């Protein structure tokens, strides 16, 4: 409804008055709606009560001989409906499909045998005039009475029922006669409850039941092997599918005695919010991808692989604990706080060392980095003043995930030493799924902290850069730093010493490296052929 003529002050005042009145009326209507809802539910309850009462009365009347037509005149229902509510005789069974099992109307025909042929004290009731539910109740009551009076022979009763084909052969055997005592429980022969089978969600993957209480990784693997009846691949799949739930439960356990409780779903600042479902946010993780252009052709280069890079990174990384808050004075770096920083990257001119701020960035201008990258830069180029333009930080802790990481690392080492592949892959799944889903991911509903994910990854890359720096200090020739965990060096790295100890000890633990392979560098720095 558009008006093209501007309103006068008077008309405007009137319009605003009208708006106020209408808003008030909307609030009134909402209140009245709520009251009516409450009334409606009360009335529904009353309706149920009164209907049940009327139905019971109809049944009484029918039993005492009043015809359906007379009752129809009284109530205003049709005679057919009256017969439905209060059948005089049990309704004949509707046409059954051929071959179907007979309908379960077992209790109508059970006769109660009494030991010394004394009649029951209750008045004789014509069982054919009762509805099923009432019949059951009556049968229960009579049986209870007889049981209390000690005149019930349960075994004969069950034999009779079995002979009449009414008792399921697979049903549990009749209880011994001795269970009936003078102080018998209220409902003696209640049907056994069927165990509730919780079905897995349709289309969902098979996973282990939720870990409850204190659990260990070894215990969980045992559980999986049991459920998969020894099949290692199936057990591995079960474990992989429950990895995300398990790792969050493990994190909870590890943080049980902690001082600060981290915030699970904080409000995120704009640089951490993804612009679209498949697009990345604005944080730069500084992934290294560098080849040394000065390597002479023909050099033999060894590839060293770092073990469990993400696991080692998450054990010691500066993570923000609470919600990220924009700092008033971003230019000074506060080591007690961690988060994301908008920095103005300088151009990196050194040819023989990789850029600590990573390679391969196509845009120019300021970029958002996390605390580990900033600390690496400050360590790599101590004299260089890096300009921080903006920052979003929170109070930090370097050991937020230390206990969690230590548990996983211990389990990993034990599995490797024992040669247990299932546990090894399970532990790998645990920490890699944590690192990939702790950010903005629907697969992990218990935490949403993308800055943690970026920080852990950046820490892993920083650790790799520092290993390269250590190799350079030991006079080894660093040829390339690639991916998350590959360091390519030329020279005798096995006997290189760092502070009196071996610089690159070999092994499978997190503080050692693995030798993968060697190759020969070609004319333009690429790999020529596999060597030895």
């Amino acid at each position: 409804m558009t008006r093209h003529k501007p309103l006068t002050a008077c008309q405007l005042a009137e319009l605003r008055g009208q708006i106020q009145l209408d808003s008030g009326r909307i609030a009134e209507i909402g209140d009245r709606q709520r009251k009516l809802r409450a009334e409606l539910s009360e009335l529904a309850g009353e309706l149920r009560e009164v209907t049940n009462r009327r139905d019971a009365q109809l049944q009484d009347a029918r039993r005492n001989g009043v015809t359906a037509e007379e009752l129809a005149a009284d109530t205003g229902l049709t005679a057919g409906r009256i017969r439905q509510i209060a059948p005089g005789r049990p309704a004949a069974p509707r046409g059954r499909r051929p071959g179907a099992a007979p309908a379960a109307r077992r209790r109508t025909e059970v006769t109660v045998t009494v030991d010394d042929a004394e009649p029951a004290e209750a008045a004789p009731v014509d069982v054919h005039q009762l509805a099923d539910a009432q019949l059951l109740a009556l049968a229960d009551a009579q049986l209870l009475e007889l049981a209390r009076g000690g005149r019930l022979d349960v075994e004969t009763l069950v034999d009779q029922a079995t002979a009449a084909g009414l008792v399921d052969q697979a049903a549990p055997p009749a209880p011994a006669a001795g269970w009936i005592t003078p102080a018998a429980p209220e409902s003696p022969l209640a049907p056994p409850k069927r165990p509730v089978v919780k079905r897995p969600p349709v289309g969902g993957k098979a996973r282990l039941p939720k870990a409850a209480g204190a659990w260990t990784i070894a215990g969980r693997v045992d559980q999986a092997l049991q459920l998969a009846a020894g099949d290692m691949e199936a057990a591995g799949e079960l474990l992989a599918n429950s990895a995300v739930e398990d790792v969050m439960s493990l994190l909870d356990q590890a943080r049980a005695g902690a001082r600060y409780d981290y915030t699970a779903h904080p409000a995120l600042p704009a640089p951490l919010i993804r612009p679209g479902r498949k697009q990345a946010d604005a944080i730069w993780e500084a992934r290294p991808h560098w080849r040394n252009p000065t390597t002479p052709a023909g050099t033999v280069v060894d590839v060293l692989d770092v073990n469990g890079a993400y696991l080692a990174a998450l054990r010691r990384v500066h993570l923000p604990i609470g919600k990220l808050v924009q700092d008033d004075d971003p230019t000074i770096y506060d080591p007690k706080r961690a988060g994301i920083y908008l920095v103005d990257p300088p151009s990196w001119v050194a040819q023989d060392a990789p850029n600590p701020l990573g390679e391969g960035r196509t845009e120019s201008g300021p970029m958002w980095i996390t605390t580990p990258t900033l600390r690496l830069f400050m360590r790599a180029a101590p004299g260089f003043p890096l300009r921080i333009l903006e920052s979003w930080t929170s109070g930090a802790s370097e050991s937020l995930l230390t206990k969690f990481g230590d548990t996983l690392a211990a389990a990993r080492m034990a599995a490797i030493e024992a040669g247990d592949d299932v546990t090894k892959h399970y532990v790998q799944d645990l920490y890699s799924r944590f690192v990939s889903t702790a950010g903005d991911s629907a697969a992990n509903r218990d935490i949403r902290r993308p800055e943690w994910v970026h920080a852990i990854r950046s820490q892993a890359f920083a650790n790799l850069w520092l290993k390269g720096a250590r190799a350079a200090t030991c006079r080894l020739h660093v040829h390339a730093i690639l991916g998350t965990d590959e360091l390519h060096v030329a020279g005798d790295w096995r006997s290189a010493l760092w502070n009196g100890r071996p610089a690159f000890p070999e092994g499978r633990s997190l503080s050692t490296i693995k030798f993968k392979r060697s190759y020969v560098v070609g004319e333009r720095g690429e790999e020529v052929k596999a060597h030895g």
Partner: protein
Amino acid sequence: MAEWGHGKYGPTGGELIRDAFDAYARSRLIRSDPNSRRGVSARLNYLTSHRGGVEALQAQGLAARPRTLRGWLAGLVVPRRSSREAIDRAYRELRIRNVARELRRRLADGRRITVEPLPADAVPHTKQTRQGQFDDREVFVDGGTWARFVDAWEDDDDRYMDDIWMDDVCGDLGSPPEAYYEVAHVGFTI
């Protein structure tokens, strides 16, 4: 917080949850223009391939014959403006119903949500440490309450969402519950 509930201090928890559900629904709804060929065929595709689609079209008064429908789907015939609007309305109705069902399924097990109360003086800080103050609280909202939130969202009933927030969630957050009626942030993963 003497005047809670009037939006004076900020958004209420119910409003924020409604925004979260809206964002989820927006990511599921077709984004193309309902008057464009692509938009019409996408909507008709959804309506004809999901249960309740034809009924939704009929409920909007579109008694299109199968031949007409086929022409629309093949892109040979362009429906009238009123028909396009009816198709869009039918699509939105059916889609929101299905999205609500999906939300109920996802939230059936309950969620721990993070709540950040508004920094008014009446609300005490929870953790005060050297590293600063952390004001966030966590509370577990069970599946039944989520189902009621989704029902209220489906009916577009904002006041009822606020009521559920106030009655069921605020009580567990702290005392007095009125202090948590209006909050700065509610965080959870759907």
